[in-house]
């Protein structure tokens, strides 16, 4: 439920908002759909990462030119060990790390602040 919500809300709002839109989406989702902190973190992180990776792969596959390799090449220029890793995999890993961290901690923040405003009964 939370996973799907973040994916849907995140997808729509990222289309219009700034690059960090996924953060308020995770925050708000977790604020209103309370979870335990650890699952909230991981669900937010995975949903955010899925969104970024999924759309990245969609754009990558639909493109006529392999811009992904060109951009990845800038990052791997001095790292021959990474030369054989497919560029889209590298891009996905970086996207997953960035989105996962930001989404995860935003979700966690949402739960924590929701706990602060609505102290658990009993």
């Amino acid at each position: 439920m939370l996973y799907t919500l973040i994916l849907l809300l995140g997808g729509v709002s990222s289309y219009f908002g700034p690059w960090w839109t996924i953060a308020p989406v995770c925050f708000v989702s977790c604020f209103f759909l309370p979870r335990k902190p650890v699952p909230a973190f991981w669900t937010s992180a995975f949903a955010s990462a899925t969104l970024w990776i999924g759309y990245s792969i969609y754009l990558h596959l639909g493109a006529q030119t392999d811009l992904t390799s060109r951009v990845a090449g800038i990052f791997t220029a001095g790292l021959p060990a990474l030369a054989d890793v497919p560029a889209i995999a590298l891009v996905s890993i970086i996207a997953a790390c960035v989105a996962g961290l930001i989404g995860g901690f935003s979700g966690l923040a949402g739960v924590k602040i929701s706990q602060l405003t609505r102290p658990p009964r009993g």
Partner: protein
Amino acid sequence: MRLIKHLWPLFFALLLIYTFNRSWGVIPPLGKLFNPFVGFLQNAERNPDRGNGEVALEGLHGKVTVWYDDNAVPHIFAQNDDDLYFAQGYVIAKDRLWQMEFYTRVAAGRLTEVVGPGALEYDRYNRRIGMARTAAAIADRLKNDTVANRILEAYAAGVNAYIRQLSDKDLPVEYKLLNYKPEPWSSYKSILMLMNMRHTLNGGSNDSRITNVLAKYGPDVVAGLFPDYPAIESPIVPQGTPWAFSPVAIPAVPDTVTAPPDTGLFAFAVPEPHPEVGSNNWAVSGSKSATGLPILANDPHLQLTLPSIWYQMQLSSPNVNVYGVALPGTPAIIIGFNKDIAWGVTNTGSDVMDFYRVRFRDSTLNAYWHDGAWKPTIRYTESYRMKDGSQVLDTLYYTHQGPIVYHKKQSTNYAPNIPVGYAMRWVANETDGADVLTFYYLNRATNYEDYRKALTYFTAPAQNFVFSSNGGDIAIVSNGKLPLKWREQGKFLLDGTLAAHDWQGWIPREQNPGVKNPPRGFVSSANQFPADTTYPYYLDWRFAHSSRAIRINERLDAMVRATADSLRMLQNDNFNVDARRILPRLLVSLALDDSIRHSAEYDALERWNYRNDADAVGATIFESWLGDLLRGVWGDEFPASERLLYPSLDRTFELINHEPGAKWFDRVDTPDTVENIDDIICSSFKTAMAELRERFGEISARNWAWSNVKQTRIMHLVPSFTSFGRTNVMNGGGSGVVNATSGTHGPSWRMVVQLDTDWPVAYGLYPGGQSGNPGSKYYDNMIDRWAAGQLDTLLFMKHADEQSGRLLRRILLTPKDR
């Protein structure tokens, strides 16, 4: 405590957003860049050819139709000239915004703002040679020129209309990687683009290095080794052409011709001229062509970059219909054709950059001695903003000559109160004229008279403008401001205290070298001497090596019933005139050494047909050896550490062919032995072959193929974006052959125009693509065809409603109601 426990994830999330929102050193902002909704993947084009569109733009007066053809070339049809240049700016910005802005930052010395302090010395140099200051003065003056101001303003408005439309996700990918945003465009920036070109074409000097030669060896050696005209030349104006004018008085040569530095240690960081920046152009008359009308060809040689320096387009309004290439950032077509005429340019390359030793009154640098009086310097403070917002200040002094590029104070034990520096007089800092109007009027020209009138607006640096018309005329003129000099003025560093060393005015423009409809039936240029020694004025003591010119003129001389394809083949001609001139003599010496004579390298060289073809092993051996040969002959007497200029190729070849006993062949660093020409030739050959074997392995048809050794590459303007460039472009050529493709430089646009009384047929292409976006299929799509020597047939439309299967989509630009 409970508060901290509950709030820390929020702060940590905010910290992460901050971290990924900004760049850290060379690491770009990872959040912005890798978010697929706004990041670089938004630049990966799905199908650029699909979809007509309509865009409403504030500032347009009427509708403008833009057709894109199958090579992504825009064909712009406007109802008036203001809209035409507005649309030109809009359309170029759409494809090349980052590139054009980048060039202006280079010319203005503002790279530190986007790449950081690593660019400071480069910026400082560009500011200190005065480009930004001059561009500002020109832009300011052109505000009063109704025509120039109008097109520059319309163009800037078009670029800005595009910039205003851009959202973050639409930014060119370089902005995302370097984390900055475009600034508004202005006519000043268009002038900066032209300044950048002035610098590229004329921003080098040998004056200090030949002055060092003079100081070390004296005037006789300079006269012997550095003559003012080569032994073998084929000048632009054919030998024997009478000069149809009475020259003005030429200034007398003063007693003192140079003011060398007190010490060779001062910082004189002016780059040497780049011999690979050159160009070819020619036109054959109807008497030589199959159609009975002129055919014109041009290929300017520049550093090969992505995005390309040129952008193809057609510009059409009720007043003009022209096709060709534009410089991104500058209005009008720079090289092209219309229904009636075609034109092209090569660099003239005469000496228009001189240095004057300045005598300051004291260490304040407030006054300098000139013509018997102390005169005040003008002082400017240049400030450089770093990427992090910090500032660096630098003081720059001008004399009446121009900026003092570098001044290095003497060491404390050496007249410390009188710092010595050199002021630079450079034609690129002239602020009169309006180069952009030359192109504006050429775009509209219909005959020879229009062409000559258009040329009068051009200032610098002088270009050899080749011309042809369907009226049957062909012509070429070395056009631009040429200083009136005494013989050899500026061959050496000059004395800033002497009025006689100032530039003495200008050669009257109509007396610049030029020729119209010569009896030989063709005109041509390849940066060689514009005229032979009968020309009354001194232009320079050295121009580009004559090899390309000789080959072009030989081929054109022999040509009958020429077609556009004959000219295309000449553009791709790989014949090495230097090899023909010198190799037979070199082989004689090589054969004296048994170990060489029996080597596979000697065999390949002897069997070589003098063509720098892609698969030629002989070309590899000859070209790789030439540098070692020159070092072998000159390296001992003219060591690089002493910053001494080598004599030219022409002089060296003459020495080898005709003066084998010259003392220069004996190495001065081996006092016990006397080397002769054979020793130098054989030892340099062995050195060169050892280097080749080390780099490419034992000789083989594949590893030693010229294309494999030359390694032509076309790299992105940001050097560290190596993956945005193309390497291993396999082709022949060389800097001394007509197909002047070296490792990094080459024909940046090839064009052949066959004029017709009805409608011209034209061919062209450049090593890149129309789009500046590395995520577009039009980023580098022409490179392979270029390397193969092909040309595209250019679609020159008569009107906006013309039908053609090559037109893929149409964008309608309409005025937006305010």
